[in-house]
């Protein structure tokens, strides 16, 4: 047997094992992205598919569309608030729990379980909790804030920041998961490393900063990927809390409404295509970077 043949013999079974997944994802992900691109340059409007080529008509329309600008802005704010919020809450909880607390298992389950509940189920509750009526009619979270004397209007009806309030339920659902990630990361650091630093006379803060922090970057990165994909896909939540509301509309909602409510299927496909590109621009460099780093580390 030649060397080359043996090498091929080694990697062919692996390739075979992966290939069904690749074929399926090829169709259900890349094929459907292709479908969206194709539809986005046609004039399909109304229930019956039409395929007259209109070039970049829908894209040009979208770039000039105030609603689309508003939605893109909302998505950006939502993503930032949601990711930063969930990250900080998750990290804070993990740091507090790292040393061990009584009832850790119960606490951990409480923090984690919101992830398991769909927003079809909790949408109504959150709608109530985020209720923004002024004065006497105040309910929900504002009611609680009122108890400690801060009646906030950050999610008041005419606020441009209502979308940021949506990050609250989204963060509620996922910061427990981020906590679990960080906690696992913290626990994964060998005690000897921290001890060694302490023996050298480092303060607790310096131990965290110089020993723990660098080791948490991989966890941070994977939490980022998880949160980013949830953020871009967030749909049920917003739709359940405030359908048709411009203050909380994101491109994903716009796409759904314009395609399935207005039958502007080509416009919907154009929005989807733009979303894919936006995702690719953010995600591809990240994946490329992390794989390269992994390789140099190996």
């Amino acid at each position: 047997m030649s060397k080359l043949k043996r090498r091929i013999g080694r990697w062919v079974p692996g390739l075979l094992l992966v290939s069904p997944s690749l074929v399926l994802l090829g169709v259900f992900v890349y094929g459907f992205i292709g479908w969206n691109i194709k539809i986005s340059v046609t004039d399909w409007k109304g229930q019956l598919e039409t395929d007259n080529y209109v070039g970049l008509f829908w894209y040009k329309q979208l770039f000039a569309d105030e609603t689309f600008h508003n939605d893109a802005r909302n998505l950006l704010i939502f993503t930032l608030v949601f990711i930063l919020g969930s990250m900080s809450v998750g990290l804070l909880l993990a740091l507090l729990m790292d040393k061990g607390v009584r009832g850790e298992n119960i606490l951990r389950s409480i923090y984690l379980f919101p992830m398991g509940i769909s927003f079809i189920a909790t949408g109504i509750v959150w709608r109530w909790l985020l209720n923004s009526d002024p004065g006497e009619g105040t309910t929900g979270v504002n009611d609680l804030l009122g108890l400690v004397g801060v009646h906030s209007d950050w999610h008041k009806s005419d606020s441009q920041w209502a979308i940021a309030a949506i990050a609250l339920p989204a963060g509620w659902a996922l910061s427990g998961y981020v906590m679990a990630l960080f906690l696992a990361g913290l626990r994964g650091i060998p005690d000897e490393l921290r001890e060694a630093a302490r023996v050298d006379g480092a303060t607790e803060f310096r131990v965290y900063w110089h020993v723990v922090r660098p080791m948490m970057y991989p966890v941070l990165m994977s939490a980022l990927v998880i949160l980013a994909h949830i953020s871009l896909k967030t749909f049920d939540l917003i739709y359940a809390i405030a359908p048709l509301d411009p203050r909380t509309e994101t491109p994903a909602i716009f796409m759904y409404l314009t395609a399935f409510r207005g039958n502007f299927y080509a416009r919907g496909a154009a929005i989807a295509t733009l979303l894919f590109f936006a995702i690719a621009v953010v995600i591809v460099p990240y994946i490329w970077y992390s794989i390269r780093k992994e390789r140099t580390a190996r």
Partner: protein
Amino acid sequence: MTRIFRNLVLFAFAIFFLMPVYVLLVTAFKSPGEVDVVHMWTLPKSLSFDSFSLVWPKLQNGMVNSLMLAIPASVISSLLGAANGFVLAKWRFPGADVVFPVILFGMFIPYQAVIIPMSGLMTDIGLKGGLDGLILIHIIYGLPITTLIFRNYYIGLSEEVIEAARVDGAGMLRTFAYIALPLGLPAFAVAMIWQFTSAWNDFLFGVIMTRTEFWPVTVALNNVAGAQTVPFNQAMASAFLASIPTLLVYLLLGRFFMRGLMAGALKG
């Protein structure tokens, strides 16, 4: 002192996380006339299980369908993810570094954008209407994240274990089945939790891809809310009932879940 403070903060967060559940439950126990947004925090005047017994018959069929759907979808998707993860981490082939991001990108697909071509395709291949087609769809869209979980998990696995198997002359499938799979149990907990949750909570695929008798519980849940008038107490009671299976999965797999995370599943 710091210890008390620490516990206090953790306790406050626990209260915050339980807040929606509190509202959900007290509302579920209220009578229709008592339900009022302004008084959402107040306890019900009397404890009535009426809402629960009223909605249960409406949810029953959907619960069964969702179980029939979520269990195979999460198990098969995790198995395939384990195989992919194993190959990409330990049995690499030229181009594996390209294949991984190609799989991972599927995670970011907004589902509303694929529903039309998917429905057409499923109709053409005769898989639309039943649970089998829906299971297939959940398996496929679960592949990116399960692959990610297992790849990151197996990367941390020591090379020597694999090499030893290789020296013994074990092929890839045998190494995977007898060594990697048993070692991968903690990662299974992580993958299953994700997959069970997303299959159980899905509404869009379920309502479009199946016929009435196979609708998952989320469709029934959505229908309790009604088109015009929402019976809030019943809606909340059904929301609670429909969440029980995922809660059970969390409690059952919770311990393995942390172990899986600690062993490196989902470490960038």
